[in-house]
């Protein structure tokens, strides 16, 4: 799904070439993955492992069984949510590297809401989800306000906010929010108490971790698509992202929409944290984010910064992460190789995108 097909009703004349263009658009990321896998194979050979066996193990681990595939979807869920936030921010011309921190505070807030709010049943779940979303939004609002008011570079401030969130979690999980049982037992593991069962997201497949949060994330992706291409808010965010000067000239308050893009970006990452707590861990634990805040950026780029493109992108990346575990166990290679593979994929996607754009620009400039 390319951006151009979604902006407006297409016309018959250009329909065919559009279809071909979006086909090409889809082929590029696939090619990038294949190329990354080929290079990965070379590295595997150098490491003395059989690449065929390794990749077979990886594919089996990710997609070959019910437990593997559901686990892939479980990992894909936070990636998708973070990726949606990154997509909105990028579309608004701001770069949100703060997914990790926003996810952590989202998880903390959801935990606190589920533990301390005296609400019955589904209301408790809803409150926890909203609390996580709002906390993430707040974490995005701080860099947003700094950028709008003082012109502070959002890349730096969002990275710094990651650090603050991490330390905040360290403090809360060792102090005020620590599980009382851990104190009683004297083990003092840094984690919160187990949440009440009515705050859990429903598990979809018995004896797996797959939970309703995955459905929520897909709905969110459709919602973001709708927001960006069917509402005035999304229109303004995209206008500001593509040309702030023209947007300002046309009367759009540019800074306000840049800030909004960062706030929405934070909100989705915060929701990812809440979903991870309520769907998988059922408590706040140290290291809950698992780098999703950063991998989500990769998923968003891989999905061509399109909310619907982010869905297959997250599933694929979830699969790489889950399958990578299996590969590591089967052929005994360091799991850093998986991270390197992800990096290569991004490099190729962004690189091929650049080349395609340049070629398109050449072909389109007549005069």
């Amino acid at each position, binding site marked *: 799904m390319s951006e151009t097909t979604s902006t*407006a*009703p297409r016309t018959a004349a250009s329909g065919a070439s559009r279809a071909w263009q979006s086909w090409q658009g889809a082929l590029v990321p696939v090619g990038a993955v294949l190329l990354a896998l080929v290079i990965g194979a070379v590295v595997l050979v150098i490491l003395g492992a059989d690449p065929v066996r390794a990749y077979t193990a990886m594919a089996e681990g990710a997609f070959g069984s019910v437990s593997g595939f559901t686990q892939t979807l479980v990992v894909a869920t936070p990636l998708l949510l973070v990726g949606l936030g990154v997509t909105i921010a990028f579309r608004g011309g701001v770069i949100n590297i703060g997914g990790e921190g926003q996810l952590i505070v989202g998880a903390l807030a959801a935990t606190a809401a589920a533990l301390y709010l005296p609400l019955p049943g589904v209301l408790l779940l809803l409150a926890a989800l909203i609390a996580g979303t709002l906390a993430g939004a707040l974490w995005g609002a701080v860099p947003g306000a700094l950028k709008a008011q003082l012109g502070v570079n959002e890349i730096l401030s969002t990275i710094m906010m990651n650090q603050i969130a991490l330390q905040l979690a360290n403090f809360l999980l060792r102090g005020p929010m620590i599980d009382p049982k851990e104190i009683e037992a004297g083990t003092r593991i840094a984690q919160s108490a187990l949440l009440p069962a009515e705050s859990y997201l429903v598990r979809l497949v018995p004896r797996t971790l797959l939970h309703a949060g995955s459905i929520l994330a897909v709905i969110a992706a459709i919602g973001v698509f709708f927001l960006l291409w069917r*509402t005035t808010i999304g229109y303004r965010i995209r206008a500001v992202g*593509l040309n702030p000067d*023209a947007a*300002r000239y*046309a009367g759009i308050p540019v800074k306000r929409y840049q800030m909004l893009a960062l706030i929405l970006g934070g909100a989705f990452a915060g929701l990812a944290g809440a979903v991870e707590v309520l769907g998988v861990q059922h408590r706040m634990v140290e290291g809950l984010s698992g780098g999703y805040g950063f991998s989500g950026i990769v998923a968003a780029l891989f999905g061509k910064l399109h909310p619907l493109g982010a869905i297959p992108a997250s599933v694929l990346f979830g699969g790489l992460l889950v399958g990578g575990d299996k590969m590591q166990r089967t052929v005994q290679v360091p799991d850093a190789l998986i991270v390197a593979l992800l990096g290569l994929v991004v490099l190729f996607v962004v690189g091929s995108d650049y080349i395609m754009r340049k070629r398109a620009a050449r072909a389109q400039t*007549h005069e």
Partner: protein
Amino acid sequence: MVDIVKRFPGVLANDGVSFDVRAGEVHALLGENGAGKSTLMRQLYGLYRPDSGQIIIDGQPRVFHSPSDAIKAGVGMIHQHFMLVSSLTVAENVALGLPSSRGARLDLDRVAERIRALAERYGLKVDPSAVVWQLSVGEQQRVEILKALYRGASLLVLDEPTAVLTPQEAEELFVTLRQMAADGHALIFISHKLHEVLALSNRVTVLRDGRMVGTYPTTEMTRADLARLMVGREVLLQYDRPPAKPGEERLKIDGLWTVGDRGTDAVRDFTLSVRAGEIVGLAGVSGNGQRELAEVLTGLRKPSKGAVTLNGKDVTHASPAERIAAGQCAIPEERMRTGVIKDFSVLENAILCDHGHAPYSHQTLLDFKTIAAHTQQLIADYAVKTPTADTPVKNLSGGNIQKLILARELCRKPTVVIAAQPTRGVDIGASEYIHHRLLEQRASGTATLLISEDLDEIRALSDRIAVIFEGRLMGVVDAATATAESLGLMMAGTRHAD
């Protein structure tokens, strides 16, 4: 260049064009936007490769794979948009990409010396140690020419070099170009301004719709001949203007001051009013505060002193959105930077100001049915040439983009229009069209402030002409009685005696 054919998807950009230029001559390449002038020259400069045909330089057929091949063959190109690094000095820009005569050590002093020698020879006044962003557009263009000369160009292509210059700057450029031709350089001068072609060139080749109309000795041609060859029909070079019936005061600028980008006062104590049903032209040499004044009037720049009143309402510190709401429309000077979002479609650009309210959106939901109908209406009413409403605006020609902007702004039935350089870089056909639309607005009672560096345009459209010099108002004269000489004196800083 012999029998050049170049196709783009859906367009035959050059259809069997042959073209030759001799040492010591200025050969003008004339044609409307989209006629294939730039495409032809880009093939000569190695940016595109011809589908068929040959490029022969100094008797040898050449195949250029990239601009660096072309540069080696002695071809230099001055683009419309300058390729300079704004934070570097003139000498650094000229030396950029060239090996130093001292190996790893910079030889900027030698570069500067050679620049001075070249500059003196061709009358290109530039300080080699000046930083590029501080230079005026005219000076930056001189740097581009120096760059090409420094690299040993014997064939120089100038792509609409006067589009960014004032008449005076253009005149200076012509002196330089004549000197270069006299020195044995071959010059190709791309333009769609007839009087420049007549004033400068020895021969002229006219292109239309990718085909060659013919090559003619310039001395045998008149303005009307060239216009007819270029557009393919008779062109009116003047407009019918019924006498103005000015009504109430719509826009009032009172003792306005503002600070420019370089920290100095760009507009000083400027007072002017525009009434309903009249066009007031603001003339002046480029860089005398017109841009800053337009920015204050559109809410992009803060005034330091003074007041602006719009339809009786104080808008001195109003945001762009508040001014739009108060009935003001603006046609920006830099259409690609501030007028449109180039990656947005025609349709998305059509609602840039108006997307936020009915009938285009309801409770933040965009109504694409209404928007599409509205866009089709604009495209039809303003003769915007675009394949579809979904085409990204970056694929349209300059004239069509300007028509789209005009359509978008004027369809809102403004009471005040600020038009800054509305036809800069736009072909004759589109200029004529835009001028008619502005005169239509005048007839329907709109107050228009026309800011332009094209004195012909100002004189053809305005009822009163104001002149700005170094940010100050030099005077306001009746357009009917103003002479080019009196306006020229004011543009050079002589205050008009009332």
